[in-house]
């Protein structure tokens, strides 16, 4: 089996990728110091996605793996997306059609912050 394992990847310069990841990490931390909410969020999650992609591609070799492996992982994420879409209207909002969640402090704010399916 080891022979097949060899066959399936050629090893890039991992240290270089690691350096990029660390650089991105620094950027996201510095970005979080900003007081503009958008900047913070982009610095946080935009970069997180990039980092995840780099790790998956270069360390996990998803790109040279059999096609259906990335598809499998994407499908799992898709179902989580469906779960979110189906559940968020009830959990993320505190007011909906003919119901309200008065216990929560600011229903208006959080309710408006999201849209309904």
């Amino acid at each position: 089996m080891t022979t097949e394992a060899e066959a399936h990847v050629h090893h890039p310069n991992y240290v270089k990728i690691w350096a990029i990841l660390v650089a991105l990490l620094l950027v996201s931390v510095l970005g979080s110091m900003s007081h503009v909410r958008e900047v913070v969020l982009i610095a946080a999650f935009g970069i997180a996605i990039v980092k995840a992609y780099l790790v998956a591609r270069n360390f996990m070799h998803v790109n040279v793996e059999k096609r259906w492996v990335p598809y499998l992982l994407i499908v799992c994420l898709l179902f989580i997306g469906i779960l979110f879409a189906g559940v968020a209207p009830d959990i993320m909002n505190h007011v909906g059609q003919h119901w309200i969640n008065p216990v929560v402090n600011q229903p208006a704010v959080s309710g408006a912050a999201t849209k309904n399916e």
Partner: protein
Amino acid sequence: MLERYLTAASTYAHSIDHLFILIAAIVGFWLIAAETIMFTLVFKFRAKNGRPTQYITGEEKHLKRWITIPHAMVLVCDVVIIIGAISVWYNIKQNMPVADETVRVIGQQWAWSFQQAGPDGVMDTPDDIRSVGELHVKINTTYHFELMSRDVVHSFAVPAFRLKQDALPGRTITGWFRPNRLGTYDIQCTQMCGLGHALMAGRIVVETPQDHAAWLMRNSNPAAAGLQALPASPPDGTLTLAEARR
């Protein structure tokens, strides 16, 4: 069809019953058709009839028809049922007619309690009428109910009204009903709510405006209301446990 088993006492009870009959007709047809075909095939193609088995892959056009055509018909039936289901649902759960009266329904282990405006017609005033286990309503009057729960998930169900809505702690859910038949009907809790689930019964009394006014007068005495007022906090297990054990 449903009315043979249980009286229908609200305006939308019949729309549910009719949808039930529509679905029963459609699926009944398919059920009988499928069962008949299956048993016919079983008896027609018994080994003892001496016929050798045929080699059929199921790719043959002239045979595939027998799957694809019913398939399309099922799709049509589904669309019909969906339209019926959603229209009924929309009228009962989404579209709110203007309220003549409002009543607050509170579920707790293990009783339904109700609060409605007293003679002054305003909610949350001293003469409000609070009752436990029994709700008095006027016939041909559109009621909005504000449903809430003190402890666990309950479900406010009035079978005669074809009405059912879970009561969730932390939420106020609004619904409506319009009784159109005099009488006393059951209120159930249809969501498992603990030891006394089976004891969580109530009555809903649909009465004429005159009787209702008289009932209001009898019960609007604040002192009496005070007596019947409920504990603000969830009841401690022991008391209700004893109640459940009787």
